[in-house]
């Protein structure tokens, strides 16, 4: 029983005001307006691409809403685009960079030096030496707004770009740059890149498929300019750790070693073929910018394995033009004609474009 009088109402008012102020504080800070600057889109893109040498350290969060219907073989990849990943970054340029992917009870550290890099896995107490590779399956550091933003902007045409105001990201003024791909096959509706007005570093990247919520949203929560301490970025395997050489057998390596070459068409689903140095020649790469397609010849066993997992997905389409699944803007096709070989086609293209690709691909080579 509370006695009226004796300031009960006044005291509870103090409580209410205190709670109110504390609750409102974060939203007030978050609502600080960002100041826009009159930078044209091509210039902003150039600024972003030129920021590769800007040294900084920061804390980033990437959240993906994509559930890839693939099995354990690609679980790392699927975790990457479906989960929330927290990363700490120390970046002094491509030759001295450290990215820690944080977990509640551990972390995985990616240290890059001039001649390759170290991957430190705390949970396994394992340090793995990796060689530089022009093409490999994406790792969490590739999802950092700086890496992803620059990569997506690098092949964008000026006509695809427009300005979209400004917002505050990581407590900094960020200028918006919107990329709307022109390719008819594109499954990516648009990409919003928010570029730091001061340094040109991309601070946030949002990739939109057909849905209104981003299929991938990666942003810095904290960012500080300036060269990180070399002691922080260097890595020496600690005593007691297992040291290994990178023996990860990507699908790509497997394809390169074991699958015979098949002549690939110069164009697939309306996308021109392209070459990337160091990429296995057996793999066909098509497209530009955010509309990319990869056709990989794989063993039938593997294809059937992947197909089995894909079929379990309710969204799978299997209409005789190839088994296809879309996860947000990401499409996956398994083409497994009778015989030993099969095609695995993946890319940021529509299901129809995948069907067109299936029709245009030559019969896969028999296993050699």
């Amino acid at each position, binding site marked *: *029983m509370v*006695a*009226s*009088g*004796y300031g009960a109402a006044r005291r509870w008012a103090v409580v209410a005001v205190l709670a109110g102020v504390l609750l409102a504080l974060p939203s007030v800070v978050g609502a600080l307006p960002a100041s826009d600057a009159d930078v044209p889109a091509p210039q902003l893109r150039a600024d972003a691409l030129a920021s590769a040498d800007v040294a900084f350290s920061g804390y980033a969060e990437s959240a993906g809403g994509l559930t890839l219907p693939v099995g354990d073989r690609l679980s790392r990849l699927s975790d990457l685009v479906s989960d929330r990943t927290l990363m700490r970054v120390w970046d002094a340029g491509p030759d001295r960079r450290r990215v820690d992917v944080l977990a509640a009870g551990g972390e995985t550290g990616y240290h890059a030096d001039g001649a390759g890099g170290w991957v430190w896995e705390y949970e396994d107490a394992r340090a793995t030496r990796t060689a530089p590779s022009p093409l490999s399956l994406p790792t969490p550091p590739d999802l950092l707004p700086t890496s992803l933003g620059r990569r997506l902007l690098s092949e964008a045409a000026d006509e695809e770009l427009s300005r979209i105001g400004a917002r505050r990201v990581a407590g900094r003024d960020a200028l918006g740059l919107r990329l709307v791909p022109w390719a008819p096959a594109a499954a990516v509706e648009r990409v919003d890149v928010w570029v730091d007005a001061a340094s040109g570093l991309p601070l946030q990247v949002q990739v939109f498929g057909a849905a209104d919520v981003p299929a991938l949203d990666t942003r810095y929560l904290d960012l500080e300019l300036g060269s990180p301490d070399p002691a922080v970025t260097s890595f020496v395997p600690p005593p007691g750790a297992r040291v290994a050489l990178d023996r990860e057998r990507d699908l790509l390596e497997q394809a390169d070693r074991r699958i015979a070459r098949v002549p690939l068409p110069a164009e697939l689903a309306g996308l021109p073929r392209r070459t990337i140095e160091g990429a296995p020649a057996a793999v066909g790469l098509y497209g530009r910018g955010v509309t990319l397609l990869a056709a990989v010849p794989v063993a039938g066993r593997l294809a059937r394995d992947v197909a089995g997992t894909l079929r379990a997905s309710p969204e799978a389409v299997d209409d005789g033009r190839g088994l296809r699944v879309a996860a947000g803007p990401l499409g996956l096709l398994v083409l497994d004609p009778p015989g030993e070989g099969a095609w695995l086609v993946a890319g940021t293209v529509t299901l129809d474009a995948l069907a067109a690709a299936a029709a245009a691909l030559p019969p896969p080579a028999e296993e050699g």
Partner: protein
Amino acid sequence: MTAVIVTRGLVKRFGRVRAVDGIDLDVRAGDVYGFLGANGSGKTTTVRMLLGLVLPTAGEVELLGRRMPRAARSVLPRVGALIEGPAHHGHLSGRANLSLLDASGPGGSWRTRRRRIDAVLEQVGLAGVGRRPVAAYSLGMRQRLGLAGALLRRPELLVLDEPTNGLDPQGIAEIRELLLELNRQGTTVFLSSHLLAEIEQMATRVGVLDRGRLVLQDRLATLTAPTGATVVRTPEPDRVRAALDGRVTAVDGERVVVKGDDPAEVNALLVGAGVPVIGLAPERPTLEEVVLAAARAAGDRVEVRERGR
């Protein structure tokens, strides 16, 4: 005489119930004030308001000349209290309990603590209990320990709620003697009880609470002053009526009430008429009668529990 407890228009409402309904207490220095009322009449609520535990809905309380609960910190160290039975930490000894209680407020120097504890334990008759935890005490021992806690700082005012609860007759007599002795030494005692006999035996002033209202407040001596009549006890009441025609106001078995405040004069008349007289005394109203009459006057019957135990 200075006022020790004064309340003006004290009201406490719990929801829609007026537990205490505008009472004006007046307890003066040196009093043994008997605060009488049935269970549920608002006694305990009033006592808690005096001590600042329950906050009044309206009205004010002055303790030792200072406003409560505002001046609690300076006033309460000078007040000893026993509220609705004793309460202690069962796993600690009586001595440790007293020590902790003394240390948890102002006005009890740690230098004299040991000595004071020894003294009060002696006073309430617990000197020999040693280090037994309170959980092993009997109800009567806990009551004594509670009283010891109230006496720890030689208070000017003792506020005691049912202090003899759970004591055997001998214990009751001991405690009564202790309280009267303290009163003689100058301690004002505010005694809240539903036991008429207890109040009648000890109090110098009486306040009667009936369903939240103070229906009576006066000196006990005044309330029970001779009425001007004489009570005669005789095996033959009819002959009294015959001998003292017109002066007999009431006959109840062997008890006859006769007008006239001089028993000797009445006795002489009766002996002269040859009426056997067993007993003879000036008539005084009992406290029970006074209380019942006051309650009736207040509009309702007060439920008074059995007298004594």
